[in-house]
């Protein structure tokens, strides 16, 4: 038992230190200045949190008034308890749904060696892990309840608050927080009890997956009689909110929240909240007695890896974990790679392999990732219509369009570079390898941009203001449509060169390909700017037709030069 708590407390200390380091805490700095800074930081963040919650409370007060109006509840406290209760129930049902499919106890790989294989008391392990994971779910729910507590005071005072109301304000926040802490812990422990029950010994309990669904149906049934009784007086939403506050079946939760929001006495409410905690912990202790830690570890290791990659900001690892989660255990051979091999040999095999990889990750996901390019192309084209003469906003939109293309166009190349021992051995000319890698990006980037331009053209009549600004000219749209593919090719090849330039063989062999950096953005910005200046005739020596031709030539030449340089650099990765 002591060993379990020792390991867990070390982990929690380490995690706590990570967050403290973000606000400037240095455990090795024992100086007075540092202590003064910490006091300052503590006061600052407390006041900041209070200020933010108070600010949000203004909006929440208006929400409570609306809820009161549509539901017919006779006080803001009842409206707050109805809203808070619904949010808590939804959160608990969602958490139970997750716990019925994947272990709520998150074990890292180290935990699986240190804890899962020891004969440690499973109840201690469950409790220690609950303590560690509780704050992250408590924090957002507490923030909501405290805000609702503040909102009740705002609502009751009709916006006439002054400094003398601060104690009342703080007391309302504390009151709602006090009951939330125990109620939420009780519900979380119940959810974990369900998860632990599913993971007992080697029992396979598929029916436990149905428990959250049944609980959801029961909640709806519990709300139904009161909702139906209320319907003649209000609409469905209003009746449902009324039922959430008044239904006798939800009284065990409502009583707690109403005590927290001051519509009933605090002492019985906090007593009931503590009762929820005790019930939850007892059930967790009972179901965790035979908890199979190996199964829990097996189910949760990827979640732990994902969390540690998130904390470290390791984008590549996050992508890889997400990819693996999306994929099945295996697949029947794809038709893309089978059949007549003549048409699929050489560089085409690389392209087909890329198509297969994208399809395994989901076409919808791939299309969605390009939809932002469509949006920015459309918005960029419409801005002169929408906001007359605002070249700054248009330039910013174009810049963001370019950043997206830089990022999207190197995805395939980076993926292949991360499999360097395979990719680097392909008997294909380096130039053709690069072309195969950016082909889909240029194709989809152009299609997405064209779609944006078409949408802009169609939407133009809807956005023209009464002052009748200059319309988006069809000629201008056509010029952009012609320039887009070659400009996108130049941006993609510049980004590819940047990625290759930064690549180190040792890193690639370990599966780490660099992200496009400043050079990609600089190349993209210069080529885009030149193309736009030349094509729009803003450079005096270029009349419109010649300007477009020159813009096309500049982009095409840049693309060619970047492609040749990239191919040379790909042969020389060291």
């Amino acid at each position: 038992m002591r060993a379990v708590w020792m390991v867990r407390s070390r982990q929690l200390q380490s995690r706590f230190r990570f967050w403290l380091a973000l606000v400037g805490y240095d455990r090795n700095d024992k100086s007075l200045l540092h202590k003064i800074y910490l006091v300052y930081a503590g006061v600052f963040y407390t006041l900041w949190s209070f200020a933010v919650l108070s600010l949000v409370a203004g909006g929440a007060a208006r929400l409570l008034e609306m809820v009161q109006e549509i539901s017919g509840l006779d006080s803001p406290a009842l409206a707050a308890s109805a809203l808070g209760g619904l949010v808590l129930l939804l959160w608990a049902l969602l958490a139970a749904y997750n716990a019925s499919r994947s272990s709520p106890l998150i074990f890292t790989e180290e935990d699986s060696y240190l804890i899962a294989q020891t004969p440690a008391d499973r109840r201690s392990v469950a409790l220690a892990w609950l303590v560690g994971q509780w704050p992250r779910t408590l924090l957002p729910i507490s923030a909501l309840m405290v805000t609702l507590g503040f909102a009740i005071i705002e609502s009751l005072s009709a916006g006439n608050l002054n400094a003398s109301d601060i104690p009342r304000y703080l007391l309302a926040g504390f009151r709602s927080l006090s009951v939330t802490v125990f109620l939420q812990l009780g519900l979380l422990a119940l959810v974990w009890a369900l998860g632990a029950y599913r993971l007992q010994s080697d029992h396979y309990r598929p029916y436990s997956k149905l428990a959250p669904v049944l609980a959801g149906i029961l909640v709806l049934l519990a709300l139904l009689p009161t909702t139906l009784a209320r319907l003649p007086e209000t609409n469905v939403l209003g009746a449902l909110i009324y039922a959430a506050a008044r239904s006798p079946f939800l009284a065990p939760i409502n009583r707690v929240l109403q005590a927290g929001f001051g519509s009933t006495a605090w002492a019985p409410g906090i007593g009931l909240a503590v009762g929820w905690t005790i019930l939850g912990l007892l059930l967790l202790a009972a179901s965790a007695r035979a908890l199979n830690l190996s199964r829990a570890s097996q189910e949760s290791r990827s979640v732990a890896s994902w969390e540690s990659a998130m904390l470290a900001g390791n984008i590549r690892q996050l992508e890889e974990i997400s990819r693996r989660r999306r994929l099945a255990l295996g697949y029947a051979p794809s038709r893309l790679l089978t059949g007549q091999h003549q048409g699929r040999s050489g560089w085409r095999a690389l392209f087909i392999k890329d198509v297969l990889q994208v399809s395994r990750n989901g076409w919808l996901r791939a299309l969605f990732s390009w939809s932002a390019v469509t949006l920015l192309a459309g918005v960029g084209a419409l801005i002169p219509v929408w906001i007359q003469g605002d070249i700054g906003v248009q330039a910013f939109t174009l810049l963001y369009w370019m950043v997206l293309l830089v990022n999207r166009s190197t995805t395939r190349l980076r993926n292949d570079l991360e499999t360097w021992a395979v990719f680097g051995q392909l008997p294909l000319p380096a130039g053709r390898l690069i072309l195969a890698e950016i082909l889909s990006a240029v194709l989809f980037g152009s299609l997405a941009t064209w779609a944006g331009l078409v949408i802009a053209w169609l939407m133009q009549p809807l956005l023209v203001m009464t002052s009748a600004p200059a319309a988006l000219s069809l000629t201008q749209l056509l010029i952009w449509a012609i320039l887009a593919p070659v400009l996108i090719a130049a941006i993609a090849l510049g980004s590819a060169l940047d990625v290759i330039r930064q690549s180190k063989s040792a890193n690639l062999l370990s599966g780490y390909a660099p992200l496009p950096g400043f050079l990609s953005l600089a190349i993209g910005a210069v080529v885009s700017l030149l193309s736009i200046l030349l094509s729009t005739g803003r450079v005096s020596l270029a009349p419109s037709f010649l300007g477009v031709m020159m813009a096309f030539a500049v982009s095409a030449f840049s693309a060619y030069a970047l492609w040749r340089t990239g191919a040379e650099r790909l042969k020389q990765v060291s």
Partner: protein
Amino acid sequence: MNHNPSAFASIEQNGLVARQLSHNYGNYQALSETDLHLQPGEVVVLSGPNGAGKTTLLLCLSGLLYPTNGRVWIDGHDLYGDEVEAKSRLAFVPDVPRFYTELTAWEHLRFIALAHHAGEGFEARAEALMKEFGLWQARDLLPHHYSRGMRLKLGLVMAFIRPFKVLLLDEPTSALDTEGLELIQTKIRQHRQRGAAILLSSHDRALSSQLADRVLNMQAGKISTNGSQAAGRQAAGEQPDSAGEQENG
């Protein structure tokens, strides 16, 4: 330093030729200037302690690490000047192979075969190889679900599925079971018989004595020993076939 059994090898010669090959990681010289020649049908084992530069040498010879100095010819083709011809005759298996996350083991083989224009008779070859290496039942799984040994076997199968005249193996036995060890030895012998030049790094002395025509000992980035015919191979009475006449795969 010359590690050519026939004094100065011409670059037009078949097999593997490296001239004045060296590599630095910043100021650290991982590989000192090295000359090397492997004749067709010859098996050379690189031995030496960890950090001696074996992997760096193999990476430079495979084209995955651009050398600071020197050049490499594969079957007479410059690895960095005529890379398509050179790479179509070369296969390298790293000690820890990595694979595409979305492709199954079978699809990896198919992709490699197609990229190397070796799609003819693929199904039969791939099936035979996967059965030999015990991967047939797991052919439709994604490789990240494989054990370490299975991943190494898949890396080896990916090398054997395509034609090559030079084979480079970095610690090919490090994660293999007993059957796998025997199989890799058989495969190396088969490809030597077919005229492939094979260079492998290994700490396994038994493997060296059974397979190696020469053993090169590396120390601190230098090849310190120009080895001789291994006793085991002599005892077995094996002779390389006519050099480079037959393509492997």
